[in-house]
């Protein structure tokens, strides 16, 4: 017996395979549920004597399923098996390595966003920037891709020296260039230590980025105190003395387990629909999730402002530069760069900043908010979800400026936690290479960019917008993301139906527009013909108006 949100109870047979949990009904109307084990965050048991018991399957897509199993033995077996299966962490046993795409791949997502082609937008020949392959074996910086963009005057040897001076070896690399001048860099924190270590190459790199008499900004997404105390643990921040033209700004953004705790509290509040409005609002507030969105967007806006309005270059880092740093650099690009608001551009952004940029998806998404806090590690975190939420907030405010629809973001959220595709596998490019993911698994992009699939993720209201879009970060402008957080609790059917209507309205508009254009041409031809044979008089001067 299976209880699902917004579905009738399903009475059926349970089948557990290596990767899936399948419940299929015995009724006349075939109903089935397929659930990837990797989607299950936690299994909670509630045994009822010898008659069996109830399993609560809490999923990473935030859904909660209730599975009643008859018979105590059966119940225990099912629960044990599931618990073993959801904890399989060996990457090569994951479903993507067994999944075979049943469609023809037109464009391989694994090669669609190669650094060289992507960087060609950033680096022009004769530029101050170059592509470096110093990391081609992933030895200099394990979490970086094989190709990175660095200043031209910095040799590979210098980069190796800088890598030793930066947390997780993440030396400053180019993320984005705004209108050809101001640049956006990201890195790990400098390993200043309590002794005030220096690295000449690092100083040279950063100072060479700035044009003469130009100031740059270092946005540190930690609090001043945290950055200060990081010195004692071998980290730190760039002292003004040695980086004279860089101004440091601290814009704290919560990360790691703090963020996961926030999500846990949020979902606790959302899944409790029976208590009152007051309690819900106070839980929403104390979860701080909305505050995290506000702070993240705020920081991204600051970065975008520096780049766009002051034309100043910006370096963003936190501790190791794989979490809040990536949120900020990618959101700033969405604000500034119209390309990033297209489907392809957004995919490229995620590929560049997150997947090749070394956000450790496997580690961060191993556990999610339903895992009891005692069982999860400090490095599980919904960083990427927060980023998608921020994108969605901008999307709501600029509903015509994005080529993709909101459901595209929901889809990415789901696949980033549990997927048949290899795109979000492992923690970085080096690991994916080692397991030959690009040969042995299918890419999400190859699937989603197919003409059969993509249309349903397109935004019917899209009109390309070449401008910078400044979102409002006022508390009343930000909304809880209903189609991710509320969907299992409050039926989103009416909202989806409304989007279907929007789609119809837009399609009708464009079809009648082309019909009119066609008829106008046809009429013109006919009129010309009619003039030739004398049915119509040719236009006399003065009678024809300029419309």
């Amino acid at each position, binding site marked *: 017996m299976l209880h699902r949100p917004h579905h009738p109870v399903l009475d059926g047979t349970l089948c557990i395979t290596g990767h899936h949990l399948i419940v299929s009904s015995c009724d006349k109307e075939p109903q089935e549920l397929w659930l990837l084990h990797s989607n299950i965050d936690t299994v909670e048991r509630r045994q009822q004597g010898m008659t069996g018991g109830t399993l609560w399957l809490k999923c990473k897509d935030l859904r909660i399923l209730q599975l009643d199993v008859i018979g105590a033995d059966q119940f225990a077996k099912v629960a044990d098996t599931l618990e073993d299966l959801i904890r399989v962490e060996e990457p090569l046993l994951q479903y993507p390595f067994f999944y075979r795409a049943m469609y023809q791949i037109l464009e391989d997502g694994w090669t669609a966003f190669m650094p060289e082609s992507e960087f060609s937008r950033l680096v022009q020949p004769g530029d101050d920037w170059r592509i470096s392959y110093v990391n081609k074996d992933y030895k200099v910086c394990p979490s970086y891709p094989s190709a990175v963009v660095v200043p031209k005057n910095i040799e590979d040897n210098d980069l190796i020296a800088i890598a030793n001076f930066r947390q997780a070896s993440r030396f400053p690399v180019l993320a984005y260039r705004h209108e050809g001048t101001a640049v956006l860099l990201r890195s790990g924190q400098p390993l200043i230590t309590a002794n005030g270590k220096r690295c000449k190459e690092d100083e040279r790199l950063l100072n060479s980025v700035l044009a003469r008499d130009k100031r740059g900004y270092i946005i540190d997404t930690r609090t001043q105190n945290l950055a200060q105390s990081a010195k004692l643990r071998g980290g730190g921040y760039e002292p003004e003395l040695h980086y004279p033209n860089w101004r440091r700004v601290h814009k704290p953004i919560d990360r790691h387990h703090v963020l996961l705790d926030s999500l846990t509290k949020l979902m606790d509040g*959302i899944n409790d629909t029976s*208590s*009152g*409005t*007051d309690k*819900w*609002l106070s839980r*929403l*507030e104390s979860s*701080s999730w909305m*505050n995290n969105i*506000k702070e993240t967007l705020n920081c991204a806006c600051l970065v975008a402002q520096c780049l766009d309005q002051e034309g100043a270059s910006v370096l963003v880092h936190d501790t190791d530069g794989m979490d809040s740093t990536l949120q900020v650099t990618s959101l700033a690009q969405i604000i500034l760069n119209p390309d990033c608001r297209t489907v392809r551009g957004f995919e490229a952004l995620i590929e560049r900043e997150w997947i090749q940029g070394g956000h450790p998806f496997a580690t961060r998404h191993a556990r999610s908010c339903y895992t009891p806090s005692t069982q999860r590690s400090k490095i599980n975190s919904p960083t990427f979800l927060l980023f998608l939420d921020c994108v969605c907030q901008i999307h709501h*405010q*600029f*509903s*015509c*400026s994005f080529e993709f629809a909101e459901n595209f973001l929901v889809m990415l959220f789901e696949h980033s936690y549990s997927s048949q595709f290899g795109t979000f596998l492992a923690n970085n490019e080096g690991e994916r290479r080692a397991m030959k993911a690009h040969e042995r698994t299918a890419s999400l992009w190859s699937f989603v960019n197919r003409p059969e699939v993509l249309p349903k993720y397109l935004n019917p*209201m899209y*009109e390309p917008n070449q401008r910078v*879009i400044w979102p*409002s970060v*006022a*508390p*009343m*402008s*930000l*909304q*809880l993301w209903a189609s991710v957080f*509320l969907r299992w*609790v*409050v*039926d989103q059917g*009416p*909202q989806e*139906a409304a989007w279907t*209507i*929007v789609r119809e*309205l*837009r399609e009708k*508009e464009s079809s*009648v*527009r082309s*019909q*009119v254009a066609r008829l*106008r041409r*046809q*009429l*013109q031809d*006919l009129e010309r*013909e*009619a003039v030739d*044979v*004398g*049915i*119509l*008089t040719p*236009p006399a001067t003065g*009678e*024809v*108006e300029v419309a």
Partner: protein
Amino acid sequence: MALHLEDLYCFHYTASNDDIVKSMGWDMYNPAREYHRMGVPCDSWSPTALNHNYEICDTYPQELFVPASAPTKVILSSSKFRSKGRFPVLSYLHKNQAALCRSSQPLSGFSARCEEDEELLDCILHSNPNSSHMIVVDTRPKINAMANRAAGKGYENEAYYENIKFHFSGIENIHVMRASLTKLIETCQLVTPSMSGFIGGVESSGWLKHVRSVLETAAFITSSMVEGVSVLVHCSDGWDRTAQTCALAQLMLDPYYRTTQGFQILIEKEWLAFGHKFTDRCGHIQGDGKEVSPIFTQFLDCVWQLQQILPSAFEFNERYLLILHDHVYSAQFGTFIGNCQKDRIDLRLAERTYSLWGYMKMHESEYKNPLYRRDSTTDVLKVILCPQSIRFWRGMYNRFENGVHPREPLGDLLAATTEHTQGLTDQAEFLTKRITWLKSELELKSGHSQKKDTDNRLLEDGAQQNGDEKVSPLVGGLSMREVEESLVSVGALTVNSADAAVTPEKLSPGSNFIHPAQIIESGKRLLNQLSTYQSTRILSPEITSVALDWKTFRNVRECSCSTPFDHFSRKYHCWRCGEVFCTRCIDKKAALPGHLSQQPVPVCRPCYKDVTRSISVDTP
């Protein structure tokens, strides 16, 4: 602030637009018609004339519907046993015979009873053959109702009233609501609020909680009615919480009330006729501050919540609610002046002031929800009212803060999409007609000339002759066309005068929004148009008189008259040139020569000049 009602703006306001007649909208609500729509009078329910001169209850309307089985004596006694004489009457009859009735609290005190009142409830119960019990909803918190007993008021004792189920729904009183909204507004006005300050402020104001309790009560009434059980709703006086919950329950029950017209009827019926004290609650004139309370605002908030939860269920949009809200307070129109129907009749508002409904009718297109779909499967709204689905209404409470709203509001863009589609469809029809006509003319011609050709070939051989031959039909054809055209014009004029003769008849009450001149004009243009698509000129000005593309709203920061656009101001397209204008610059409507229907459509002033000039050129 005004001291007397007669100092209010509505008594001095005159519409600048000649199209609005003063009487427009005042006759929109007709109680007999509305109750007839629900199937009343019927065997179980009949009208009563007892209150025709407001004898038994001056805050009730003249037309009341009571159980057919209830004797006059019962009604009279019941009204004496109810606070302010507001005895149980029919508010809505559902198609399953379940009745929604409303009243004020009984004057039961600690032990008093009134057998006639009990009998009246019994009559209500028995008017519905499908249920053996009925539900009495006291919308107040139990403790408030108990406290009222000390003042000789209170609530129905289940022991005295047979087969009733009593239910308290715990909606707070007007003073709590006033304080709650004040706190909410304070939160909205915080300068650079933090996220937790804002959510905390919304929480401690309690506003969303109150909105939800009103909606939940309405949902409870709705579900009882759907199950076939009749419901009597009251609070203390039965004009605040009762009006809110009864109106919302009907919105959920009956799709008619979710149309623009139906919603207005609902407001007329539940709020205006049944005596919600608009003047007191809105503080139209200086008076007791304790009487002021945002009860109607809260009702609109509830409607907005439903719009959010079910985006396709309502014919009208958020702007409609906001405009309605504005004018409930503005006192520019007479509609919401006074505290009850009697006040409004005494003030002769219908003669002396304009009605808001007339104004809104003129601006109908602004209030359309482009997502509205009438769907018979969702006659009764199913809403989940968990706390998570009740939201803060930014559009209302932060309305004048420009920066916090979506920069690309979907509603207006979709409205433009719909209008653009409409305009282009019209032109497509025009073009199709013209093409069909031309084709048939060409076929005729080619048939004709082919025949000529064969004749010619019979007579002579040679390409040169053929070429010459083509010239003569051209001249002949042209002169023939000219004759035809002038004939049609004469015809048009005669029919025009005939049309003008018919107009007084057409001005029946239902259609009195149409000015006679408009009818003549449109008739003239229609005939004109019939001849236009058969015109013998090249029609390029007609073809291009309809904008193929409309300029995007995006980045249009001000109108050409340099009026800045804020997020709330609706931007308009000129249907002819496709440019964007503000409401004042697009006050003209004209029929475009490229439209088949010849309906006047919004155009900007320069285009209006062009269109009217070209028409006067065409018209002999």
